[in-house]
């Protein structure tokens, strides 16, 4: 059934279709309409599970960890400061091996206050061990939540997932979304059946004190299972395509890359803009490719390494600026594709932050800049801030 809806409503429909057992909700812009839609579904008796109002995102995540230990499928949604407040429990969910799925409506962190789309919140949680899936559009948001449960709950994975939709750009923008039939979803996504949960006949302790001689082994196990997750992500994407006719590339989607002269790596809603600009530029003979980073964690370094053989110049577009070595996506991609024998030149573009429009014109500027670098054979500067007012004088 095709309906016109926002990505936030698409997320709520996915939660309903996934027959989630326990939902914990706490409002924050631009996530709130997910919680509101779920509340409406709950009160109408349309949800399979129960809906709880908590007093903070920290408690939302805590509650879901408890519910997951009891054996329930769980969901919450948050943004920005809410995600930052959860930070401690994000680590907890991973260490506890609870396959919680959470929608993150990506938004900037204050100050100064800003409620709009930005990837700073999600990039700041990249080291927690959560799987992170970016979405390009509203349909993808619904589909990715269904896939995320299947990947997370796999007994060889047992890691939580963030499904990321860009604040306002997707969360509050209406698009046509195909809502799958419940029967089909039930067939794709069986009930949550964890190997370990609270059992009074086999009492165990979850998360107790571990001394230095064993703690590393728990981390190592998570690292190994992240590798398993990589394979499962691709498998589940293929299975989803067979069942529902839609695929998102699993880890990475290469678009217009086969004969490309340069390529741009990016994640989230801007991928759509990049694809369109790439198509238009190709009409004018400019062979520019787009690399959609569907999965940011686990990081698809092996897949991205192929770029070295595809193109001499790679751009990386960051919709956030974390104060490390260039933007977060840039430093990851550059490290990931590093080839001691040479490899592609890489440049970082930063823009579209805090809800600032990132237009096709901006995108074209990046592609033209990459083509120029290809021609000149060297990168002029590491980071280029796009469409930014000069920060040196008074505004």
């Amino acid at each position, binding site marked *: 059934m095709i309906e016109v809806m926002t990505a936030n409503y698409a997320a709520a429909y996915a939660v309903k279709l996934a027959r989630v*057992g*326990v939902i*914990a909700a706490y409002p924050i812009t631009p996530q709130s309409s997910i919680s509101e839609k779920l509340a409406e579904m709950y009160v109408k008796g349309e949800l399979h*599970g*129960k809906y*709880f*109002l*908590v*007093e*903070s995102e*920290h*408690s*939302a995540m*805590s*509650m*879901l*960890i*408890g*519910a*997951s*230990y*009891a*054996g*329930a499928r769980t969901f919450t949604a948050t943004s920005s400061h809410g995600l930052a407040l959860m930070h*401690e*429990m994000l680590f*907890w969910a991973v260490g506890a091996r609870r396959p919680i799925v959470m929608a993150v409506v990506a938004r900037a962190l204050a100050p100064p206050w800003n409620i709009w789309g930005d990837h700073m919140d999600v990039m700041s949680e990249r080291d927690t061990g959560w799987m992170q899936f970016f979405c390009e559009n509203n349909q993808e948001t619904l589909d990715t939540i269904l896939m995320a449960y299947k990947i997370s709950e796999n007994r060889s994975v047992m890691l939580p997932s963030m499904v990321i939709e860009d604040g306002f750009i997707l969360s509050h923008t209406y698009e046509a979304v195909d809502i799958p039939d419940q029967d089909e979803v039930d067939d794709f996504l069986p009930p949550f059946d964890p190997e370990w949960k*609270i*059992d*009074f006949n086999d*009492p*165990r*302790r*979850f*998360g*107790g*004190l*571990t*001394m230095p001689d*064993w703690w590393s082994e728990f981390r190592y196990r998570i690292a190994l299972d992240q590798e398993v997750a990589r394979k499962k992500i691709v498998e589940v994407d293929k299975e989803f395509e067979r069942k529902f006719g839609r695929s998102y590339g699993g880890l990475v989607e290469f678009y217009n890359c086969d004969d490309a002269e340069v390529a741009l790596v990016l994640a989230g809603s801007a991928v759509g803009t990049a694809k369109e600009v790439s198509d238009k530029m190709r009409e004018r003979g400019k062979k520019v490719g787009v690399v959609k980073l569907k999965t940011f964690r686990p990081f698809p370094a092996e897949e991205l390494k192929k770029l070295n053989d595809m193109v001499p110049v790679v751009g990386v577009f960051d919709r956030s600026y974390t104060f490390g070595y260039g933007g977060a996506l840039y430093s990851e991609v550059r490290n990931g594709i590093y080839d001691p024998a040479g490899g592609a030149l890489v440049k970082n573009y930063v823009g579209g932050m805090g809800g600032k429009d990132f237009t096709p014109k901006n995108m074209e500027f990046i592609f033209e800049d990459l083509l120029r670098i290809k021609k000149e054979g060297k990168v002029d500067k590491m980071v280029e801030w796009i469409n930014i007012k000069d920060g040196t004088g008074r505004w």
Partner: protein
Amino acid sequence: MVNIPKFTIPKEEYVCKGHSACPGCGTPLALRYTLKALGKRTVLNIPAGCGGVILGVWPSYALKVPVVDNAFECTAAVADGIRAGFDVLSVEDAYVVGWAGDGGTVDIGLQALSAAVDRNANIIYIMLDNEAYMNTGIQKSGCTPIGAWTTTTPVADEKGWNTSPKKRIMEMLVANGIVYGATVNVAFPEDFIARLREAKDIKGTKFIHVLAPCTPGWRIDPKKSIEVARLATQTGIFPLYKVENGRYSLTKEIKNRKPVRDYLMLQGRFRHLKEEAINQIQKIVDEEYARLLKKIKDTNE
């Protein structure tokens, strides 16, 4: 014929030998009494603190019931989550217990607890009150009493000890609308178990405030742990009472309250107190006790 007294405490043990609590610690007693009252179908969720540490180091484990460890401030939220999971999966006849310390409750965990009471979460929340952050090395918490030395309220030149009164957690929760609250003391096991048995099947949030001595933290002889705990109630410093839907009642009548000096002088943490300070504490305890009696009177009219 000899009249053999009947056992009033269940014989079943759910706390195994081999836990790592200090000699004289009140916590293992509280754990034993709690589980004797609630039985096998009980899950504890325990945040950072001695409560988790004394159960042993992975893969060893000194309890016969499941335990979920959690972060410091989220006990009530995790407990309610477990209950929520049980409810949607139709797991019945199970007791979900939040087992937190005083700092983990009245300081860092207060927000989550307040929200759980707001939802009337169907959990038993047990606050192990040893009156400071003992696991981290005796730092002042919101439950540290006036006059006490701690490592963050040190004593120098007869000044500097803790000067803020204990947070009135029970009154906060009663104001919050909690259905059941009670104070219990490890020195009175029959009363302890009776309160839990009374509370366990009430639907909603139950709060149990346990006084449990910490021998290194209170600077007491492990042999005197129970004696000190008993004196806390006998002096009226830690009266035993319960609150059912806002109605207060004493659960242990103390006919002639002993002077607070008897309690204070057994503990190194109060050793620095001079006559004037002890008299001041006596005055505060008398006032607090009178307030309690008045609440009992007012809520039973």
